[in-house]
């Protein structure tokens, strides 16, 4: 039987036998459907990429109000869509190194204030134009323009001068930044012909697939870009589609029924249930995203370091991970960095729930015992309301009068977050520590949502940014983490994993901590085996 089975597998994996025929013959040999299906998937993956077919992703996070303008991308579907048609200077690879894309070489001067990007020659846009260094400059310039409302504005603001000569792009920075290449991997910075200034939402890029149908909130259809520069490593399917299925039950059912091949955001609670389903495989990636409660360090009563510490000790992190994330995540330690970042310091002790110590700190703070109000909306992060309720219970057990106030989702990010002194929030994480700290913990940052202002912290951060020696850099980042953990306004109970699912007949899947669905590359890198 084994020999026969191996023969069948080889035939099917090479595409000489249809999946249906293979399954039929396998069952004639007495092999169960589930086993045969997974054997086929394994054999097919070993066989290498298969060209052709239509690959479909079902995703949460799209609305009919979405646009193709990369500057405005904020939710999951626009991100995935832009990654499918667009190409940046570089990507961050799953192992946290720089993957060269449009830039094929990068170099900097000694203090990291001037960076040179050598632009790959012969890369063609979907409209037939050849990508030039001028297109790169124009793209970066568009994102520096306030009117573009680009999500990458904060990143490109530090560039004081950009010039193109031949195939070389030179960027001068106002202060040294050793991580600049990582910043260029930001998903807003998709290179567009002429910078996309004339028509930012045209969807013309240099990526693996070109846009065929753009129906925001419904679906996005692409076909292979015939002159894709990196065809050896991707663009396996002829056409790919993103279907917007915001309802998680429908999304899961569609995957099980084979209507889609992969999906993002599996509800943690159903992972166990989905695990037993034949033909479906759960994919987990420990990412950098974290769910948080933020206190303003400059407003009473949170201007008291003892009160902040009391609240940090009064949260049961493991319970949150178990109940809110369904176990798919790790406990946080009140600074926004975890092991997924380079230069992470594992030796910093983990903070635990300690009602007695929390009560001590609460007493030391001299708080008057009036209710401490935590503002939260259901949309602050998945399970935010439940998490706040758990927090309330564990804090009250420590004698802290924590109360929850529910706010509407609508307007939460403009009226409550970054405005109210104590509220729930989330961070998606950044590729490097510097970017995370600079975005939210620098005294002058727009998104300093804990109003944490510490000149020494700022100076250390700037020093770390320009430090090219790895050992010294790690020590500086450890210092930043400890300061924030003990004095900051961030309560970070948990880091959430990406939990996704795919059909087993999909080959080429890689775990990538940088973003959902292989950092948006799943439709390009994966292939259909049968």
């Amino acid at each position: 039987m084994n020999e026969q089975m191996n023969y069948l597998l080889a035939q099917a994996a090479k595409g000489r036998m249809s999946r249906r025929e293979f399954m039929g013959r396998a069952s004639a040999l007495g092999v169960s459907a589930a086993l045969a299906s997974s054997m086929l998937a394994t054999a097919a993956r070993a066989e290498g990429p298969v060209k052709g077919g239509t690959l479909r992703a079902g995703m949460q996070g799209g609305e009919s109000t979405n646009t193709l303008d990369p500057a405005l991308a904020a939710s999951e579907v626009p991100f995935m869509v832009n990654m499918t048609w667009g190409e940046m200077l570089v990507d961050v690879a799953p192992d946290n190194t720089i993957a060269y894309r449009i830039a094929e070489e990068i170099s900097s001067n000694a203090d990291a204030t001037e960076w040179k990007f050598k632009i790959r020659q012969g890369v063609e846009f979907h409209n037939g134009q050849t990508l030039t260094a001028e297109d790169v400059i124009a793209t970066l310039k568009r994102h520096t323009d306030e009117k573009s409302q680009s999500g990458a504005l904060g990143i490109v603001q530090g560039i004081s001068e950009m010039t193109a000569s031949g195939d070389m792009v030179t960027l001068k920075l106002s202060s040294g930044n050793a991580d600049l290449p990582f910043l260029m991997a930001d998903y807003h910075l998709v290179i567009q012909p002429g910078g996309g200034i004339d028509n930012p939402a045209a969807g013309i890029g240099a990526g693996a697939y070109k846009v065929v149908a753009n129906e925001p909130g419904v679906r996005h259809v692409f076909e292979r870009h015939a002159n894709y520069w990196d065809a050896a490593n991707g663009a396996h399917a002829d056409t790919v589609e993103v279907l917007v299925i915001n309802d998680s039950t429908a999304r899961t059912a569609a995957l099980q029924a084979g209507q889609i091949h992969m999906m993002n955001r599996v509800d943690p609670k159903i992972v166990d249930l989905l695990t037993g389903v034949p033909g479906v495989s759960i994919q987990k990636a420990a990412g950098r995203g974290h769910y948080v409660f933020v206190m303003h360090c400059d407003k009473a009563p949170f201007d008291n370091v003892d009160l902040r510490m009391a609240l940090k000790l009064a949260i049961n992190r493991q319970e949150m991970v178990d109940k809110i994330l369904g176990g798919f995540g790790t406990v946080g330690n009140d600074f926004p960095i975890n092991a997924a970042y380079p230069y992470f310091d594992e030796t910093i002790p983990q903070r635990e729930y300690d009602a007695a110590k929390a009560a001590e700190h609460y007493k030391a703070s001299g708080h008057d015992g009036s209710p401490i109000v935590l503002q939260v909306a259901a949309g602050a992060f998945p399970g935010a309301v439940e998490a706040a309720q758990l927090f309330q219970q564990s804090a009250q057990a420590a004698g802290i009068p924590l109360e929850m106030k529910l706010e509407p989702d609508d307007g939460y990010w403009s009226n409550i977050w970054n405005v109210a002194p104590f509220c729930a929030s989330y961070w998606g994480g950044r590729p490097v520590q510097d970017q995370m700290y600079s975005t939210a913990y620098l005294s002058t940052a727009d998104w300093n949502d804990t109003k944490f202002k510490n000149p020494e912290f700022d100076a250390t951060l700037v020093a770390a940014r320009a430090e090219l020696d790895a050992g010294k850099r790690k020590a500086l980042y450890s210092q930043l983490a400890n300061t924030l953990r003990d004095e900051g306004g961030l309560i970070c109970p948990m880091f959430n994993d990406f939990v996704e699912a795919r059909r087993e007949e999909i080959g080429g899947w890689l775990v990538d901590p940088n973003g959902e669905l292989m950092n948006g590359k799943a439709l390009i890198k994966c292939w259909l085996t049968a």
Partner: protein
Amino acid sequence: MHPVLILVTQRVALGLLLLLAVSVVIFAGTEALPGDVAQAILGQSATPEALANLRESLGLNQPPLTRYFNWIGGVLTGDLGVALTNGQDIAQAIGQRMGNTIFLAACAAAISVPLAILLGLVAARYNGRWPDKVISGITLSTISLPEFVAGYFVIYLLTQVVPIFQPVAMIFPGMTFWAKLHAVALPVIVLVLVVLAHMMRMTRAAILNVMQSAYIETAELKGLSPMAVIWRHALPNAIAPIISVVVINLAYLVVGVVVVEVVFSYNALGKYLVDHVAKRDLPVVQAVGMIFAAVYIGLNILADVVSIVANPRLRHPK
């Protein structure tokens, strides 16, 4: 002029007047929403100059009356403007979704209307006996189920237990008619369950009501079979209330199926509206609101006209 024609003309004119009034209400109502549109578009990064520029270009500085006439003028010429959030042409975006809305409604109506009337007739024929009780019992349960519950139930049953349909019911141009039918099977089943009971119960009640008339007794005394009496004498005279309940349900199938669209990710008008309400995209909300109101009023006029035409006393005035 024939009196029926006069009546019909009156109804149509009244309907158009009502639609005009609705347009004022929709415009005023959405304009009265708190929150500045320009601010909503620009978000946190808004500078006072940018706000002023955008208000100017959106025409927000003009008096409300001018804006209303500009808007209604656009609506009448088929120009619904562009969505504020992503600059898409609204008429174009709505066009395809409207087609999908009508496709789903038509499929559901094609099954539910004949079925409801048939079941209503059978229930009336066997009034108080077991077929009546069974039909009434079943329809009573379906009317008592919220749509989303019915939705998940059929997803579980018909895509997981017996996998014959797709849980996600999107349809696109270029799909064959049969592929579309297959795609919308589940939402159609749910909608049929939801609207069946109301129409069936009204049909039964209307028939039973007519059955009390003297001419029915005459027909019965003539020795006609009960089903023939219902079919030839009761049904024609009960047609007006039946049509009006059918029309209410048709209108519901067009304008009231947001939940079904959400559950099955069906790309039609309801979901489009919900997305844009949340983002305060007023031109879209106004446009879809007008379309829904027009459908509702149009169907009501149709019901009135049909019942006028169907009414023998009005058709042959003395």
